[in-house]
């Protein structure tokens, strides 16, 4: 599983494929106040990213992978300043 869910946080790691999207969406809906940790995420499918964008959750940690971070940060930042 590339996503480990707890009550407070979803921790994404490795490569999050489109198969995880259903679970992620469901979890996000059930946990409206939870946060997302992307630190160990190497890549996530655009469908998952869209889901995260729509959820507007606080990202507690950005990916260690600089390239991925650069791509997704502006979209997932709740504030409007990139990076």
């Amino acid at each position, binding site marked *: 599983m590339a996503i480990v869910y707890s009550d407070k946080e979803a921790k994404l790691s490795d490569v999050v494929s*489109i198969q995880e999207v259903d679970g992620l969406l469901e979890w996000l*809906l059930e946990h409206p106040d939870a946060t997302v940790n992307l630190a160990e995420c190497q*890549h996530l499918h655009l*469908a998952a990213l869209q889901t995260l964008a729509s959820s507007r959750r606080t990202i507690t940690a950005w990916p260690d992978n600089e390239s991925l971070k650069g*791509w997704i940060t502006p*979209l997932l930042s709740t504030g409007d300043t990139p990076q």
Partner: protein
Amino acid sequence: MTPLLEQFISETRDLLQGISEQLLEVEKSDDKKTTLDELFRVVHTLKGNTGLFEFPDLTRVLHAGEDVMSEARENPALWDQALTDYLFDAMDFVAQFCDSIEETDGNPVSDSALANTLAANLRAYLESSSQETDAAASEPEDKPATKKAASKTTAKKTTAKKKTAAKKTTTPKATEKKTTEKKTTSTTKKAPAKRKTTRKKAAKRPELATGLQPLDEALFSVDRAARLSAWLQCAGHEEVVFVEYTPLTECFFQGDDPLHSAMSTPGAIWGDLDCPCGETALADLDPYQCVTKLHFISSASIEEVEEHFRYVPDQIKVQDISVSTLLAPLGEEQNDALAEEALTALCQAIEARDHAAVERDIDAALSLMNVDLAVANVLTDMKRLLTHAGIDSAIQQIGLVTLAHYLCYELHAEPFAFTEVAAPEAPEGVSDDAVSGEAEQSADQSSNSDSDDGRENTDDASDEQPLAAAGLEEDDLEAMEHILQVQRRILRMDSDDPWASGRVDAVINVLINCYDNLELADARQQLDVVIESARSGDIESLVEWIEGQLSYVPPDLDVSVADDDDEDVDHDLDDDVDEDGSSEELESEQKSNQENAPASSDTKAATSAPASSVSKPATKPTTTAKEPESKSTPSITASRSVKVDQEKIDRLMNLIGEMIVAKNALPFLAKRAEEQHGLREMAREIKEQYAVVNRIAEEMQDSIMQIRMMPFSFISMRFPRLVRDISRRLEKDVQLIIEGEDTEADKNIIESLAEPLIHIVRNSLDHGIEMPAVREKAGKPAAGTLTIRASQEADRVMIEINDDGKGIDPEVIKAKALEKGLIDEATQQRLTDREAVNLVLLPGFSTAEEVSDLSGRGVGMDAVRSAVEKVNGTMALDSETGKGTRIRISLPMSIAVTRVMIVESDKQLMGIPMDQVLETVRVPRSEIYTVKHVQTTVLRDRIVPLKSLNQLLALPSPQTINEEDEHAVLVARVGNDVIGLIVDDFRGSVDIIQKPMSGVLSGIQAYSGAALIGDGSVLMVLNLKEVL
């Protein structure tokens, strides 16, 4: 067979149809180029599809076909009939291959030898043509690529060169750029820093002028902050590729991960996602719909990026951009937004790298300003740059200087002379002086109205110019040649345009600036002379002078179609295709720019620059935009139509049939409520409800019938090819006219027509239309005409097939019929010519003396007739010897619903198809006479034989009569006879969905089918022909 393969076969058949239409079109068409483009596109698609499967033979043949068409596209003259034949053969091969796939369930038997021959035939064509046309064209499919690559390298070279060489060339380039070249654009852009002032214009508008607009639009749609971050990431690069990637909404289902594709693009530097998901509530989100647009920048070449996205070429837009473009501001213009002193102070602070002061100035300025202004945008960016953490100070300074230049430009102020900052990775900067000079130059050069202003600037500029010397460097030379070519083409443009004089002014300015900047004094003097005459209207001398300066003069081409003046131009057009720009927008933007620009300051002059190019973008898209359009059309139509299995529609049809039956039960219910339960009120309400349900059900039925409707073109589209093939084989000259192709009828009817019509057409060609020599002798045009006309008459579809051939000789037919024992001699005497001609419809009749491979195999016209009759159609044949033959087929539009008359006999209900019913009458018993054991009556002076339905059906009871001693007689037409059917009573008419009899009942010929009626009982439908 996998669903994918099934779909492949069905699509392939559609595409083959398209190809054969296009092939025929090409033969006829004057505008071969367009048709060939379309043809190529279809073949290309088909070939691409085959790549999904392991069918090497198929792919080989199609690949050859594609190559030939690609070549033919370049060189339509290559097209001839033999090539069409080869292509037809190839397409037949593909069709057979598809059949084979289907028959063998995915393991086709492939005739490799045939495939090789076909491919070889096509390739042979290719080789011979490429030798003729042009050595470079030898590898046609590689051609565009090579060309592109070539021009690209040239572009790069020029660009690099340019940089060092300096501003002079830059100026002309801007204009040139407008006309076509991306290459030029990039060049201009390339030159660092200072140029920005101009460049901003260059960055923004000239780009547009080149026709690159959509990309630019895309670029400007990128969030300003994102662009700034992109710029930061790109520091050290000068020219990058900007990609806008719009994945299909359903791309996830195709296994795509657009984010991964984008991130793995070679040389990806920076990327941004434009995703509206943030505005969608999570609960409403459909995560499997891709709604994100990706913008990213790569340091790789356009070719590499395109290669990376080769599977989704229509979803990406790729464009070279200069990195500094990323900083170009966007927003409302207001050139007095910032006081001159404030601007100067700001620039000085930047120059002094006094960031605290810069920030203070910016804050002060921003607090007074509308944030939508372009100027405000620049200032905000500056501030972001200042506050950005961990930024290289050199890059920061470059960014600030760049922004300052944009700022000056926006404010229409003189560019501030900054000291140049060497970018850490990009050491080859241009001196500040040079840049500012250049900026002014390009400003004036581009102006065509304020040419005087411009000229002054030019002079200043040339003063500062440190030029190589009299002998031009290779790069300058190349650039000059190019500029001159472009100017020449501009001058060649339609001089009727109202802005033609402005165009000439612009050219003159470009030339003056070029020569001034290159310090070619001698040429400059000559130039002055021709310019004088050009100003007085003698443009020709200027053109000649330009041609004299050129090392070679390209062949004259209409500018609007000029696509191969030289490789670079071609290349650009190709690129333009990527962003099939809306030239109107472009134009209007340019115009508004012009209007906005106040008329006195000289920077503003630059704003009007695009004016000279206005005409160009306007014309160019006519050639270039075509391709993307045609590319996009199929995808649009594809998404608007659905392919549905016929079974599903049949099911719908059955359901609506049941619905109608169920609904028809309501009146019975109402009747019962009233009569048995005395609920009159209830009965009325039920009837009201019935009216509503009835209306809806009828509309529904109508819509479902509509779904089943197919245009006549579905079968008629195969005729052109058929006629072409047959007439070529028979060496006859035949012109086929098809009318009423959009006439619609039920799918079953249309499909049942296909075979008979093909047969009729073959007959007409084989027996009807004579050889050209015979025709001429008979005083007819050598080319025969075959007309197939479909039309709608009430609820029937009429198909008429006319030929102007030799017609059918009734005497020959009669003799033949007698010989074959189809008629006896008495009949032979009695038959009218018309009736005789219709004898060909009898089974076993064939007039052809010899059996050919086309017709006369004994299947005859009777096969046609029975096919037509099977769907309740009728056909008639008229012929006039020497003049031609006409066959008329009349078919019901739909076979799904039949209207029947319900009659009662021996307490049973029976249906009689309404189209056979002539009238219903009550005949007094006293008026029934028995003549020769046959009951008859006289109806309106006509003797009508009467038959009792009970007798016919062997029902024991006699027909009942009513109180007035009258029989109920239904007068029907059966074949050509009119007959009166005595029944017990009439029950009105009703629409039914007739079901064929099945099981043991299917052997009973007296009934054609059965249907349910409203009260739930079964109604048998009589087949009168059999009953009688």
